[in-house]
């Protein structure tokens, strides 16, 4: 056992210069998702948005009910799989392997899709993807499209871009439909209308669905039937569909959409033209790899052994389904995430939303507080990386680091460690010394030098005089202590520290 060397260990750290690397070793100038398009940035910081959301009792009740239901279901179906942990580790490894050769896999995917009659497009960012899709829809002459729920198209604001071009996009997933009809925003990756209860959904349907039965009750089955009726005719007349993809298999060119309602099958089967927008990270190298993810995803997302429908298609099949297929491969900041050796694990996400459902922060604030289409723990690590951490600087702090997300993640993304990493990226990106940074530096000096530390402890101990002999400190203290004392008592510091008392007892100076 050797002792640690007595030398300077960089107590004085100067902030990085403007434009310096967002990550010390991997500055590569890779562009993040552009501003002014899409839905990755909120108008308010997380604490501000949360403050409003936390006062909404209906929201809290809806979220509490929904997340506790899904947590129970997930726990049951995960519990019955004896090799869950092995599947999880396999899933993680497949994704790590995918990222390590992402360029090669994408080129192979392109080759296979093209060979089977599909057309592959590449989009550097949201604007380019929106322009490609708009152009493709316009080329068909259609002025409306049906859409399968897709995070990627939400992310890039495709519906707004289509609307600007005079094209109406009909969301067909029930929850997306509720959000669209309610002129609302999605608040959950899997169930975008999780913040709405049955009574609110009934209200939305009654007010916005043409020809809806005025006797519509709030029974979920009746509401689902109303949606079926509303969309049926749209499916049958649709000429163009737009989807996302849950998986793409590089070696075969196969795309997969995992869903429940059959709206996905309608979109993927009936129209003449299918346009799929997919983030470049969503692929897996081999057909066999799906055996892992088709076990992990349904159990983690809806808490089912298998979701009702999974559609897989490769290019175009004569006589069956769309005869024109376009695949749009989207970067929009993903390569910037890939450049960060710690943060890139966020690209492993398969969008199951298990982390949202177990998150004690998400359960109370809901998804809108995160300001991005990607809420919850995964959103708190993904959104700031896609936009650059300074554009979503409050999100990495929107977690108590309790670790429930890591345990629930089917591909074992260490979300708490990435959160901590991004906090450091934010701190290190500051050009000026913030009061917080100054305080932490002073404290670091003290905590790395026993003599200074004991002095600091003695000064802290003087705080007990503010308590005037009471066991707790006064509630009215200046910031940042007020952040604590507004809602909790703070114990008055003791007369002597433990190490002082111990040293006295054992007859020496400490």
């Amino acid at each position, binding site marked *: 056992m050797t002792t640690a060397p007595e030398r300077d260990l960089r107590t004085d750290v100067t902030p990085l210069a403007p434009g310096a690397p967002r990550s010390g070793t991997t500055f*590569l100038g890779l562009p993040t998702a552009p501003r002014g398009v899409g839905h990755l940035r909120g108008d308010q910081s997380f604490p501000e948005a949360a403050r409003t959301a936390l006062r909404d009792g209906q929201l809290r009740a809806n979220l509490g*009910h*929904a997340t506790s*239901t*899904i947590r129970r279901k997930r726990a049951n179906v995960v519990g019955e799989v*004896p*090799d869950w942990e*092995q*599947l999880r580790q*396999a899933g993680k*490894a497949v994704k790590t*392997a995918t990222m*390590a050769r992402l*360029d090669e896999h*994408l080129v192979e995917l392109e080759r296979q899709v093209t060979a089977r009659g599909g057309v592959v497009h*590449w*989009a550097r960012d949201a604007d380019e993807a929106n322009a490609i899709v708009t152009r493709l829809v316009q080329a068909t002459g259609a002025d409306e499209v049906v859409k399968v729920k897709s995070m990627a198209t939400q992310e890039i604001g495709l519906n707004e871009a289509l609307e600007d071009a005079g094209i109406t996009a009909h969301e*067909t997933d029930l*929850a997306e439909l*509720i959000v669209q009809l309610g002129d609302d925003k999605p608040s959950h990756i899997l*169930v975008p*209308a999780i913040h709405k209860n*049955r009574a609110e959904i009934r209200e939305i349907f009654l007010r916005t669905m043409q020809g809806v039965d005025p006797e519509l009750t709030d029974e*979920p*089955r009746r509401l*689902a039937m109303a949606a*079926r009726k509303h*969309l049926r005719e749209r*499916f*049958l007349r649709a000429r163009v569909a737009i989807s996302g993809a849950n998986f793409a*298999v590089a070696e*075969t060119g196969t795309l997969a959409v995992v869903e*429940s*309602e*059959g709206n996905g*099958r*309608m979109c*993927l*089967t*009936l129209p003449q033209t299918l346009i799929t927008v997919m983030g*470049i990270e969503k692929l897996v190298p081999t*057909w*066999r790899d799906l*055996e892992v993810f*088709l076990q992990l995803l*349904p159990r983690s997302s*809806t808490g089912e*052994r*298998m979701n*009702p*429908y*999974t*559609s*897989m298609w*490769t290019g175009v099949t004569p006589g*069956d389904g769309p005869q024109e297929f376009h695949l749009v491969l989207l*970067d929009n900041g993903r*390569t910037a995430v*890939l450049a960060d050796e710690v943060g*890139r694990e966020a690209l492993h996400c398969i969008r199951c939303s298990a982390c949202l459902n177990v998150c004690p922060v998400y359960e109370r604030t809901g998804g809108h507080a995160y300001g991005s289409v990607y809420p919850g723990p995964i959103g708190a690590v993904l959104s700031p990386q896609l936009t650059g951490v300074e554009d979503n600087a409050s999100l990495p702090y929107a977690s108590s680091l309790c670790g429930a997300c890591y345990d629930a993640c089917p591909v074992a993304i260490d979300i708490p460690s990435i959160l901590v990493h991004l906090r450091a990226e934010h701190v290190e990106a500051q050009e000026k010394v913030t009061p917080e940074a100054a305080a932490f530096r002073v404290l670091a000096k003290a905590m790395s030098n026993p003599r200074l530390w004991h002095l600091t402890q003695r000064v802290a101990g003087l705080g007990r005089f503010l308590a005037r002999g009471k066991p707790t400190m006064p509630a009215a203290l200046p910031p940042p202590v007020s952040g604590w004392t507004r809602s909790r008592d703070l114990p008055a510091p003791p007369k002597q520290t433990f190490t002082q008392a111990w040293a006295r007892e054992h007859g020496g100076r400490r």
Partner: protein
Amino acid sequence: MTGAREEVLGRIRTALGERRPDVAIPRDYRATDDRPAATLLDVLVDRLEDYKASVLRCGPDEVGPTVAAALDTGLGAGWEAASVVVAPGVPAGWRPDGATEDDGRPAVELAAFSATLTGIAVAIAETGTLVLDGGPLSGRRAISLLPDCLVCVVEAAQVVGGVPEALPRLDPNAPLTMVSGPSATSDIELQRVEGVHGPRTLVVVLVG
């Protein structure tokens, strides 16, 4: 377009740098299910019923009458054979007399049928999943989608234990649909409701 392609690929290469570790995939999860075939059939039935599908079991000689009984279950007695559309590869012995064979008419016209009869490619016991592969027995995708009642005939030899046993039996180039119960949604308060856009009724005839 080439510009974007080359730029995105270039960004990936920049992001990854030179160090590209070879990652070994640990595949120590269950590759096979060693339970006896009869047990797997029972598991399949249990899983299908759990997701509100109806299951009728029969021997190889009784498929025709059992399909008729399945249609009784799905449509109620008195259904018209002509309103049942059948995948082209379904054996004559399974079909109700007078059923309509899919003739490749425009997909949207299939919505007029009240039920569909198909076979399947593979069934997965543990998840209660039927895989349709677009071949003559399964039919094209639209026929198992638009009519409101779907009857699938599953033969015992088509049943495997888990997902890893199913994928090698499938052609990735085929249009595949994995069906696990009738269509459903959990979008309202995470409460599962069966029957949305896809067939609201799924009846499985399990042979053997």
